[in-house]
């Protein structure tokens, strides 16, 4: 089931958009997924590979994942969001493989009747995704050198498991 997941709004037909993708993220498609008559506010977060890193110009990032768990964990995060914001509609994608600098690696879309919840739900999903999704990244520099990058881990998170 590598990279083939359902997710997103529980009201969407399964399989419409897969969470993990090896192609460029299709934000308009994600926004279509959450559109509905009840929606008054849609919040989006897009994470992009930055060119300028600490150690020199980054050509891109190679993302790898434990894909089955990525789907499962993201499903949990969306379930949590759906129970906190029952009227929310959610869509997201994480790109895997090599993502060139300037392109998006992750996008989260949250749509709700009113604006505050849309922004809160979007933020909840991206923050949890950053902490929990089993995804790893290796920076690729212009000269071909590579380096694994890990998100800063808070001690409390490390002890969570």
């Amino acid at each position, binding site marked *: 089931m590598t990279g083939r997941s359902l997710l997103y709004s529980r009201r969407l037909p399964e399989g419409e958009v897969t969470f993990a993708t090896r192609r460029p993220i299709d934000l308009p498609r994600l926004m279509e997924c959450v559109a509905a008559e009840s929606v008054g506010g849609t919040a989006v977060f897009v994470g992009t590979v930055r060119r300028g890193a600490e150690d020199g110009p980054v050509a891109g990032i190679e993302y790898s994942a434990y894909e089955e768990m990525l789907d499962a964990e993201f499903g949990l995060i969306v379930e949590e969001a759906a129970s906190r914001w029952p009227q929310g509609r959610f869509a997201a994608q994480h790109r895997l493989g090599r993502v060139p600098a300037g392109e998006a690696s*992750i996008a989260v879309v949250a749509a709700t009747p009113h604006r505050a919840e849309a922004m809160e739900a979007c933020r909840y999903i991206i923050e949890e995704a950053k902490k929990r999704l089993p*995804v*790893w990244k290796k920076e690729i520099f212009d000269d071909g050198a590579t380096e694994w990058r890990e*998100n800063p881990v808070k001690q409390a998170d490390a002890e969570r498991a």
Partner: protein
Amino acid sequence: MEFRNPQEPAETLSIRVRLFARYAEVVGRESFTFELPHPATVSDVVALMRARVPNGNLIPEQPLVAVNLQHVRADRPVHDGEELALLPPVAGG
């Protein structure tokens, strides 16, 4: 002479370990299968792998571990046939 109660678990556990990202890179492989005596915990499996596998000592003593797609604690017992995934600190997004 050995007496074995058929209700009891196997004396030997066969455990598959999967490695990801940096951990797979340092040991040069993405999976191993180990046999170890019952009973054993997650941390016993990790200790065995760190001792047996070349460069295994470069993997932390207490890595994040998942079984059945869920995070587990180091003191969780392991069961015959299970697969342990050793996860480097995550870096998604």
